[in-house]
């Protein structure tokens, strides 16, 4: 797991109180109040984003929230899910919707 010093990196929503979300049938559409861009989230990206709405989380915690049986998985599966979730977090970060929590202090 990625760490800053000895502390695991946590991820958070950039402006949790101001981001606008609308669910339309199967689609989740998010308005970013900073960029004024509108984004469509697929099911996986929405699962990650939705989990972060309760507060900052590490990737390990996100696996527990988003992946069924996440608590009892093998280390190999955990590594694979870590890779997948990091990819989704990178995409959400590129949209300006989430950021690493340490970036706040920086």
């Amino acid at each position: 797991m990625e760490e800053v010093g000895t502390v695991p990196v946590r991820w958070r929503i950039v402006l949790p109180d101001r981001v606008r979300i609308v669910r339309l049938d199967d689609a989740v559409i998010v308005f970013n109040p900073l960029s004024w861009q509108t984004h469509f989230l697929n099911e996986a990206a929405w699962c990650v984003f939705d989990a972060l709405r309760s507060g900052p989380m590490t990737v390990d915690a996100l696996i527990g929230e988003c992946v069924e049986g996440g608590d009892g998985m093998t280390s190999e599966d955990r590594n694979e899910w870590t890779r997948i979730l990091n990819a989704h977090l990178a995409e959400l970060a590129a949209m300006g919707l989430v950021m690493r929590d340490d970036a706040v202090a920086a």
Partner: protein
Amino acid sequence: MIAELPVAELRRRLRNEGLSLDCGLIRVRVRGDVPGFAEALQRLYGAFPLECANVFHDVTVRLERKRRWRDRLRPYVQFVLDGDAPFDALPAAHHLPMFEWGINWCVASRCHRYLLLHAGTVARDGLGVLIPAVPGTGKSTLTAALTARGFRLLSDEFGVVRLRDHRLLPLVRPVSLKNESIAVFARFAPEAVIGPTFHGTRKGDVAHVAPTPQSVAARAEPAVPALIVFPQFRKGARLSVEPVDAGLAFVKVSGNAFNYELLGERAFEAVARLVQSCRCYRVCYGELEEAVAAVDELLARAVQPLAVGQ
């Protein structure tokens, strides 16, 4: 009504204080002395009331005659908006298309208190139908056809969404038809008032359909959005009607707006409310009569209008 004004008096007004056109969303003052313009204006805006010229106008335009040496003194018409000329001049014979295109530009570039969709808009019994589309899909022809069959015209070009309550506002002006659709519509609605055909404009042949008196009379009455129809005209096609899911409808409607990015969060909310409160369908048609019947039936089924103030 403007139709009752002697044409000589109309020309005099256009040369002097101007003619006031209350289109609902905006009031336009127009001046001009281009030959043929007064007659065309009277035919297409005949059902509009004669307004006092000494009131506030959102837009003041003038159609000026121009002659340019490089064009061997062929007459041209210049659209002048509040003293500025934002476009190149067009041949003088294209006076009315230039006036209509110029007013479209004024609305699209100024009316940002509203979400502006590129859409035809009609209503029946207070329920609005939005017909958003890219050019060439039959939006204007379907809008004109619905109007000819008893729907109230709100606009041929703009779906104007009021941001505070997401109602559709009328911007009543002539419907612009192009090329083959002119003859198609004339056969479909021989009783409709159609203006002169302007040949060889930058959009091909163009003619305009006058708004019905019912539409003009109700130009201050908003409509509750109830139905969104994405039209697709294909020559000879059989009618097909397919529901469009709300997510895709959001993409199509937001992508169709003139000022979505300018309005930001308010536009996001307005589009979301629109697609949540309307039934959305794709209507592919080859025959106008079938398309009109389909929209008629779809609107009858759309029973979840947007509640005021929600």
